[in-house]
């Protein structure tokens, strides 16, 4: 045992101790309170305030100890007063200084000792506040701090004794005591509150109130200090006096108080505390260099104290206090230190709590997530130990077994399955465990009376040292999938059989046009074995121009969904292996196979059908001409005799001649009707739609049919008429409908009766009615009335003398007008009616600028964005334009001013662009207007045209306008070299060839070709300045000649005028200057095209303008 040596200042020390006159005085609560608190706070059985006298230590206060003194030689405190730092002995039995100390060996059996020196005013160490335990223990940093705090309190108590000497001083001491008392009170209250409370906020609030009360401050805060990502400190309050002084700050306080207000500004009085970690006293804040950060309206700040809060060496928070009437001083800081320390400990505890809480929370969350994932899997998941006992199974596993999860846990496969299944499962488990690797495969298990196929996976689980401790398995029921696969295979076999035996050729291609399969019929049609074409581009089965265009069609379809043949049947030309071409029907459908886009084409060779069609057309032509020629003589002769040219006839002869004459008339009508029907059915009936006023047309029809009605003693009466109403109509065709309805009405009216006609106008519909007083139409005939050769009473044909085709023709005509035809009938008469959509001029469109002689383009485009782009591009090239967003606006603008050309979107909101073109071509002023179609639909021959390889001057329709043709030809010739221009006319119709030659003989030297091959021969032999080209030739399309017209080394390209034979068709390419495909043409190309059209048409339009005016 080491006796405690005497400190160097022993004499002074003893003198100071004596002067306190405290030795051997009675117990005092002010000291006992400290030892009690120390024992409780630091959880030791014994706490003592010991004063070291010359040869003893005397206990001023002792908690948990009976003795009042011990000899100095055996005292621990004698050692403790030698140093400034507390003496801490964690286990006295291990410390050579104390191991054999009697206080260690016997009562009170000290194992742990921690003694903090207590100093007199001059710094002499009088004794200690010491903690004693009978068990070894450690003193944590917080405990050490707590001990220090309490020692300081004890020291102050001791020092205060000195001050008791004078009365004045005494009162100060009492005040100090009171405050210390309050402080201690606050500390103990706070600590017990914190231990009891789950929510720390009220504790901090109370602590703040204590701080304010203890310092007599007006307001303040307690905040925790955090660090931002870039290591800047910031503070979040745990308690703050509500200083809100207006709505805004009140709202701010209310919104943020729950989570704590955050302060980031370091250039404030309290910011300095955060930044430096030092206390801050500012008794004149207004002049303080760090006074920043006080907002307008903030209550006045007269004095400020900022206290940093340390937990160990870590700055964990700060306290800010304001407006103590006397200001703050260093002493105040020292005085508040214990309270500050408590506060720091609270913040630290709060921090630890938060972290622990966070870790638990995240563990719980991840477990929940995992469980949710497992429970929502549609696969079975299980974990078994090495004995096969189930450790874990998910919901699906339990559901499959029809058991709840708990009853599965701990069971082996032998307890869950019949033996033979369990054997299988066990064997498979063993494979995975032996292989120490993932094992997958299909397995079939009988479950709920059915066989189920599972795709199962097993893999061993390894512990940290690499040993297998369990087996994890998953099993997915693939019974349905297997069944589907089976069905699919079967259906594929069936499909294959159909494909192999079907008569139509079936070809599948992928999205870039590569042929993937070809059925036997397709092999036969094209003459290729499948092996020769699969893997090659489908273009090889197409002649020009489709060959070159095909990639474009596919591209367009895939990018824009624009179907040329997709989903609809279409007649195209196929190319056989031997190089011959043939007409075929092609129907293509697109299929989406996962990510892949596939196309299936069904091909039928229609060479035979085309031949029959041609024969039928020829036959109709023969009927038309050959029947009419003799009929002309018959009808003429009979007409003359009946008309009395040969003098008066005997009555009987007269009646026989009349019969013959009437029947020859009927035969003529029949032939005409048959021709009309044939034209309607083949889509060849031409319509010349013009805005037509309907009232005069109806009146004219009445007049024209008056004499016919008179034969039956029937008159017409127009009951109601609507004036000024127009429809877009073909006048002649509509007259035909009126004639049919009027003659029918007359025929079926009783003699001396009146057929009433009315024309009315409801909304945007024009309604025409023809009503007779006849016997009505029998009900059984109602649904056949518009069929061909339909007559109510076939025995009555002589009397009624109709062809039975009239209503069928009328219906087709009305429908072509976009209208409807119908009837109502009863015993007292029948009304036939038809409706036509009204045609209306639109309101005045807005035109940007006054008309000028400058070239001006009309842009007809419903997409405003495209229209504006186009307008901008044109403007940049000095071309003015107006924009029409609808067909009606375009019509109005065209009526108002002359345009050099127009661009046209085929898809317009109020009309089909093709209809508009037809209207323009029919109109006097617009028939020569160059039209550039901006289409999303690619057209045949488009690649040739678009590429600019051949210059197409214009497209002409048959029937053509002679002047227009001559003008075009002359115009095209202007660019030809001087001398007699040579013109090649490619046209299969001999009559038409003659007509063209006659028309053009003065303009040029005309050569003719009737077939494609003849034209080819001529074009390779001779040079022509212009070619007039019919598209429909007996041995192919005229467009096939276009490549021949391309420029060669010695000659420029030969311009062509396309001259189409098809009267009506949706293929409008022949009507326009060029067809440009929206998605494939740049604005520059477009402007170039338009400029070219303007140049070539300039002289044309101006001459025409002057000619018209």
């Amino acid at each position: 045992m080491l006796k405690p040596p005497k400190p160097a200042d022993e004499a002074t020390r003893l003198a100071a101790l004596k002067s306190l006159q405290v030795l051997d005085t009675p117990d005092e609560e002010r000291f006992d309170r400290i030892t009690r608190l120390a024992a409780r706070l630091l959880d030791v059985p014994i706490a003592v305030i010991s004063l070291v006298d010359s040869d003893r230590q005397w206990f001023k206060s002792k908690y948990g100890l009976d003795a009042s003194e011990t000899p100095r030689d055996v005292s621990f405190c004698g050692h403790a007063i030698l140093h400034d730092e507390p003496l801490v002995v964690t286990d006295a039995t291990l410390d050579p200084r104390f191991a054999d100390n009697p206080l260690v060996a016997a009562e009170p059996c000290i194992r742990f000792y921690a003694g903090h020196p207590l100093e007199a005013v001059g710094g002499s160490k009088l004794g200690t506040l010491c903690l004693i335990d009978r068990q070894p223990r450690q003193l944590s940093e917080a405990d050490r701090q707590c001990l220090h705090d309490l020692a300081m309190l004890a020291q102050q108590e001791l020092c205060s004794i000195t001050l008791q000497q004078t009365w004045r001083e005494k009162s100060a001491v009492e005040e100090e005591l009171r405050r210390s008392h309050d402080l201690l009170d606050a500390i103990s209250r706070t600590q017990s509150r914190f231990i009891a409370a789950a929510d720390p906020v009220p504790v901090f609030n109370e602590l703040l109130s204590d701080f304010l009360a203890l310092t007599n401050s007006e307001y303040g805060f307690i905040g925790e200090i955090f660090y931002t990502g870039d290591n800047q400190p910031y503070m979040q309050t745990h308690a703050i006096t509500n200083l809100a002084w207006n709505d805004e700050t009140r709202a701010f306080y209310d919104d943020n108080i729950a989570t704590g207000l955050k302060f980031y500004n370091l250039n404030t009085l309290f910011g300095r505390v955060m930044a430096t970690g030092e206390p801050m006293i500012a008794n004149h804040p207004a002049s303080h260099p760090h006074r920043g950060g006080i907002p307008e309206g903030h209550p006045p700040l007269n004095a400020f104290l900022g206290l940093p809060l340390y937990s160990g060496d870590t700055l964990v928070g700060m306290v800010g206090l304001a407006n103590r009437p006397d200001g703050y001083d260093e002493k105040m800081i020292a005085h508040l230190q214990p309270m500050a320390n408590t506060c720091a400990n609270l913040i630290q505890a709060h921090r630890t709590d938060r972290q622990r809480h966070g870790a638990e929370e995240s563990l719980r969350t991840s477990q929940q997530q995992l469980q949710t994932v497992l429970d929502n899997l549609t696969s079975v998941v299980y974990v078994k130990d090495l004995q096969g006992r189930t450790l874990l199974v998910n919901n699906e596993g339990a559901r499959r077994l029809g058991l709840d999860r708990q009853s599965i846990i701990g069971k082996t496969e032998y307890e869950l399955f019949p033996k033979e299944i369990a054997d299988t499962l066990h064997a498979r488990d063993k494979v995975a465990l032996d292989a120490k690797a993932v094992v997958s495969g299909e397995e079939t298990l009988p479950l709920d009376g059915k066989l189920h196929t599972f795709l199962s996976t097993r893999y061993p689980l390894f512990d940290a040292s690499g040993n297998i401790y369990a087996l994890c398995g998953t099993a997915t029921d693939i019974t349905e999938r297997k069944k589907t696969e089976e069905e699919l295979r079967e259906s594929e076999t069936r499909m294959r059989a159909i494909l192999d035996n079907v008569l139509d050729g079936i070809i599948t291609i992928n999205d870039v046009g590569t042929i993937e399969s070809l059925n036997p019929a397709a092999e036969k049609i094209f003459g290729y074995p499948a092996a020769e074409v699969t893997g090659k581009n489908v273009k090889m089965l197409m002649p020009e121009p489709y060959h070159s265009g095909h990639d474009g069609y596919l591209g367009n379809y895939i990018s824009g969904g624009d179907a040329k043949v997709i989903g609809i049947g279409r007649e195209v030309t196929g190319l056989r292996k031997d190089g011959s071409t043939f007409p075929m029907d092609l129907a293509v459908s697109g299929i989406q196979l996962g990510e892949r886009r596939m196309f299936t084409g069904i091909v039928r060779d229609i060479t035979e059908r085309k031949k029959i069609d041609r024969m039928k057309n020829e036959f109709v032509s023969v009927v038309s001409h050959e029947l009419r020629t003799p009929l002309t003589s018959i009808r003429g002769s009979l007409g003359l005799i009946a008309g009395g040219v040969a003098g008066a006839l005997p009555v009987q002869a007269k009646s026989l001649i009349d019969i013959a004459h009437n029947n020859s008339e009927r035969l003529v009508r029949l032939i005409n009707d048959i021709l009309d029907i044939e034209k309607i059915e083949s889509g060849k009936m031409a319509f010349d739609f013009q805005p037509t006023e309907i009232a005069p047309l109806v009146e004219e029809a009445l007049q024209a049919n008056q004499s016919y009605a008179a034969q039956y003693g029937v008159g017409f009466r127009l009951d109601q008429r609507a004036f000024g109403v127009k429809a877009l109509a073909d006048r002649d065709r509509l007259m035909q409908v009126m004639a049919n309805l009027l003659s029918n009405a007359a025929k079926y009216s009783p003699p001396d009766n009146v057929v009433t006609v009315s024309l009315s106008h409801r909304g945007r519909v024009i309604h025409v009615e023809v009503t007779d007083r006849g016997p009505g139409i029998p009900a059984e005939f109602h649904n056949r009335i518009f069929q061909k050769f339909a007559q109510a009473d076939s025995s009555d044909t002589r009397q009624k003398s109709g062809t039975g085709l009239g209503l069928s023709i009328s219906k087709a005509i009305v429908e072509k007008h976009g209208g409807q035809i119908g009837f109502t009938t009863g015993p007292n008469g029948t009304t036939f009616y038809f409706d036509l959509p009204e045609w209306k001029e639109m309101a005045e469109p807005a035109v940007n600028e006054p008309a000028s002689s400058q070239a001006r383009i009309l842009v007809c485009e419903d997409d405003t964005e495209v229209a504006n782009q186009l307008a901008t591009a044109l403007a940049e090239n000095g071309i003015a334009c107006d924009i029409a967003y609808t067909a009606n606006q375009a019509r109005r603008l065209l009526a108002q001013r002359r345009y050099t050309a127009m661009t046209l979107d085929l898809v317009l909101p109020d009309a089909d662009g093709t209809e508009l073109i037809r209207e323009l071509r029919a109109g006097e002023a617009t028939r020569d207007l160059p039209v550039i179609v901006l289409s999303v639909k690619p057209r045949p021959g488009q690649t040739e045209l678009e590429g600019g390889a051949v210059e197409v001057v214009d497209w002409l329709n048959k029937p053509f306008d002679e002047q227009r043709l001559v003008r075009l030809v002359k115009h095209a010739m202007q660019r030809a070299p001087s001398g007699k221009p040579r013109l090649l006319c490619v046209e299969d119709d001999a009559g038409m060839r003659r007509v063209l030659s006659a028309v053009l003989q003065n303009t040029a030297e005309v050569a003719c070709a009737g077939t494609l091959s003849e034209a080819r021969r001529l074009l390779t032999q001779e040079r022509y300045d212009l070619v007039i080209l019919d598209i429909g030739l007996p041995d192919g399309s005229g467009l096939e000649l276009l490549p021949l017209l391309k420029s060669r080394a010695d000659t420029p390209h030969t311009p062509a005028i396309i001259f189409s034979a098809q009267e009506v068709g949706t293929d409008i390419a022949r009507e326009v200057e060029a067809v440009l495909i929206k998605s494939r043409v740049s604005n520059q190309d477009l402007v170039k095209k338009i400029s070219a059209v303007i140049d070539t048409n300039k002289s044309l339009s101006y001459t025409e303008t002057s000619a018209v005016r």
Partner: protein
Amino acid sequence: MPILQRILYAEDEADIRAVAQIALEAIGGLTLRACGSGKEAVEAAPEFMPELVLLDVMMPGMDGPATLAALRGIPEFAATPVIFMTAKVQPSEIAAYKALGAIDVIPKPFDPMTLATTIRQVWEKSHG
């Protein structure tokens, strides 16, 4: 407006020619020179000096359009009105004939009782 009196007519079908002759002369009161071919009509024209020419389209040898072209080649008949008579009366065909310079097309079979009236109307229209 001059009164229409002299018509040169070409038609290869004798029956039709006969009917037309009665219709125009007996009923219509016109003076008709009926020829059996285009060639005959062209040859007859300078002597007959027709005020109007009526031509069948489909004729062997020189057809209607060729006859018209030949007549136009003779200075006196460069502007004589010509009407085609034909059984081919598709709208496109009618347009083609008009493009050649015919003032109108009369479809076959025609009504002999009104033929002269029809021709007079066309004549009046072309002079109006």
